[in-house]
């Protein structure tokens, strides 16, 4: 065996690339190629899923998802269609004509750098291409090269570069290292919505069949059965009834929800994860108890059985279709208005895009709480009210009998889920609810909450286990603030109002803060609600002993 000299060994161990992680780039961003390795990219969509979308979801839009095929990001041949560069450039032209916002965002950035250090991906990685300004530059450079006079004449000197396979790889790498959380947009003096640049980047990638399975398969499930999980009506109903069994065991109260009931006053829609996956199911138990408590005339739908809209992470057409399903069902059932559960991106689509896609929902009535008489004029166009707004209004009017001591085993903090916080301004209502249903509540530091909230790091369909390392570093700024309140106030419960958060923050805490659990705000409401005729509660909704009942 050859004897390796110590200095050589040092160099080879410290600098050589590793199969596990790879090396840190040290060149200018322009010259650093995107390299795909196990763990740094999400798996591409299965061929049959793209076939499904092509044939079933959008038979009238051929080419929206490129040619269904198998491909491997780690190779240098992605089986792209002939003339794929032209497809991308034509797609960009079409979108520049269609969306004035995109044209403005491409032109008006002055590279002031205000956004640069606001992205959780940048803060967790130090990778300059995760600065929002640079992530936008990946697309902007192509725009300059082909759509501006300066770029056409001067090319690279004017910051332009042609659409090449290397650029395409960068797009796939970095438009899937953005969770469209819009924290950077809060700090942009021009109001550039960087999330929309990512959205367009992903739309363009779809045109040549570059995509990820964790988005495309739930979207296919949602198109087929109405929800991401692919639950058929009987399973959806059975699952909710299982939750009713658990509620009965804990409280002695039997909830009797109805399904697909025509003529109900309210249609309730929430993410399917609340019906099927922990810890969302405890949030769903909270909803069920709340509605029973106030005697709400409402129905679940086994077709509009999903609030989440993976179309937001795909393209405009998908977003419109998945949003439209909720309103089609509201029309079919003849309800007056829609009550929405603790979901993230459903609310962004609703508040910021729906009116020009499917809205306004004129066939519904402006939501009015049948219990308090409050008219929710803020939802005059969408006709859909957030469960936290609805609950806060009930508490404000003294309509709920609450015993916050039942949450004394919880020391809670609140994570402002990006979309409800930044896309609909839902900042005070969940806090008002929390302060009324639990005695121990502590805020995380000011620059990590409200409009400045840090993303969970795994939104926009990045909640897939093959990129766990990437998710952990993207979620670091959020976890870091949770760690602070855990150490300072012994916080043991991270509450939020988003189903993706409930799943992703659970993993994030498993790694960074293993003592902190995750819940929806409505779970804590359910714990605190004093139901008429209930038995003495010994446990919370997840069968955990209440304070003083541990023995």
């Amino acid at each position, binding site marked *: 065996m050859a004897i390796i000299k110590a200095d050589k060994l040092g160099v080879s161990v410290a600098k050589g690339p590793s199969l596990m992680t790879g090396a840190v780039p040290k060149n200018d961003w322009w010259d650093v190629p995107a390299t795909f390795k196990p763990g740094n990219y999400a798996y591409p969509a299965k061929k049959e899923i793209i076939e499904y979308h092509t044939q079933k979801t959008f038979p009238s839009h051929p080419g929206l998802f490129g040619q269904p095929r198998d491909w491997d990001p780690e190779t240098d041949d992605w089986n792209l269609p002939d003339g794929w560069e032209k497809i991308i450039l034509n797609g960009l032209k079409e979108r520049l004509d269609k969306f004035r916002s995109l044209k403005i965002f491409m032109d008006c950035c002055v590279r002031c750098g205000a956004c640069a250090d606001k992205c959780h991906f940048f803060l967790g990685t130090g990778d300059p291409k995760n600065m929002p300004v640079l992530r936008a530059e990946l697309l902007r450079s192509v725009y300059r090269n082909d759509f501006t006079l300066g770029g056409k004449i001067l090319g690279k000197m004017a910051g332009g570069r042609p659409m090449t396979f290397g650029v395409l790889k960068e797009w796939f790498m970095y438009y899937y290292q953005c969770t469209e959380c819009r924290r950077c947009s809060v700090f942009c003096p021009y109001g550039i919505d960087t999330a929309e640049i990512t959205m367009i980047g992903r739309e363009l990638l779809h045109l040549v069949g570059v995509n990820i399975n964790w988005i495309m398969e739930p979207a296919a499930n949602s198109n087929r*059965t109405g929800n991401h999980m692919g639950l058929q009506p009987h399973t959806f109903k059975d699952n909710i009834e299982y939750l009713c069994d658990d509620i009965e065991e804990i409280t002695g109260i039997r909830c009797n929800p109805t399904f697909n009931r025509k003529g109900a006053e309210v249609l309730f829609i929430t993410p399917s994860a609340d019906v099927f996956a922990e810890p969302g199911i405890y949030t769903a138990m909270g909803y069920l108890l709340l509605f029973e408590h106030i005697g709400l005339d409402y129905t679940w739908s086994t077709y509009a059985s999903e609030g989440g809209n993976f179309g937001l992470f795909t393209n405009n057409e998908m977003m419109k279709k998945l949003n439209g399903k909720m309103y089609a069902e509201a029309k079919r059932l003849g309800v007056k208005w829609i009550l929405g559960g603790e979901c993230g991106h459903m609310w962004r689509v609703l508040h910021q895009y729906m009116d020009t896609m499917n809205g306004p929902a004129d066939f519904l009535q402006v939501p009015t709480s049948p219990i308090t008489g409050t008219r929710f004029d803020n939802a005059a166009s969408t006709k859909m009210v957030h469960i936290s707004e609805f609950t806060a209004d009930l508490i404000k009017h003294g309509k709920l009998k609450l015993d916050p001591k039942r949450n004394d085993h919880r020391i809670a903090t609140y994570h402002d889920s990006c979309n409800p916080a930044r896309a609909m301004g839902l900042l005070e209502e969940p806090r008002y609810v929390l302060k009324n249903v639990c005695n121990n509540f502590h805020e995380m530091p000011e620059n990590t909450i409200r409009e400045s909230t840090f993303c969970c790091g795994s939104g926009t369909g990045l909640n897939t286990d093959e990129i766990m390392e990437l998710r952990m570093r993207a979620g670091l700024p959020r976890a*870091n603030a949770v*760690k602070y309140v855990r150490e300072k106030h012994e916080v043991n419960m991270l509450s939020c109002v988003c189903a993706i958060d409930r*799943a992703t923050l*659970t993993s994030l805490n498993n790694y960074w803060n293993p003592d902190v659990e995750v819940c929806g705000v409505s779970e804590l409401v359910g714990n605190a609600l004093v139901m008429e005729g209930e038995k003495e509660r010994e446990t919370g909704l997840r069968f955990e002993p209440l304070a003083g009942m541990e023995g």
Partner: protein
Amino acid sequence: MLLAELLIDRKGEILDSWVDQVLTTYPEDGSRFFKKEKDQFANPVGYAVKSSLWAVYALLFEKNEPEGIVACLDQMVRIRAVQTFNPSEAVSMAYILKRVVKDFCRKDNVADLEGWHAFEEKADILAYTMFDLYVASRERLYQTRIAEIKSGNHITTDSGCPSKLMDEMAPKAELKTINV
């Protein structure tokens, strides 16, 4: 001058250089920001590196309490264990410190072999501890991934239709009952 005295007298400069060199392991633009921003929530990486290294240095070379270093190092190593470093680069701090102290010895003409042995022993404790913490972090990462898979999160993509699964499970359960 003895090395132990140098480590106390020039503590600030040694630590500044140590922190600077550790943060230089990040890409240039990231590294510049990690070095500059002071707010611990706006800059979790820079803050963790700086606070960990200062605390560890005090425990090893001022207070002589090496048993306390685990708690100080935990967050920094946990961060580096999920970043795109080679494992050796992720936990290279002890070796970087040796290099930094060697430079100061040269500059100040400190030739104290016994002192160097005592220093190196402590630097080695640092290296071993970081290696243990790194491996523990990687194991925690894999456990997190396993826990997520077990939680059913992947059911949206990898399990086929849950309704069909439940149907398939139901007859099997009945069959088992009959056999018993």
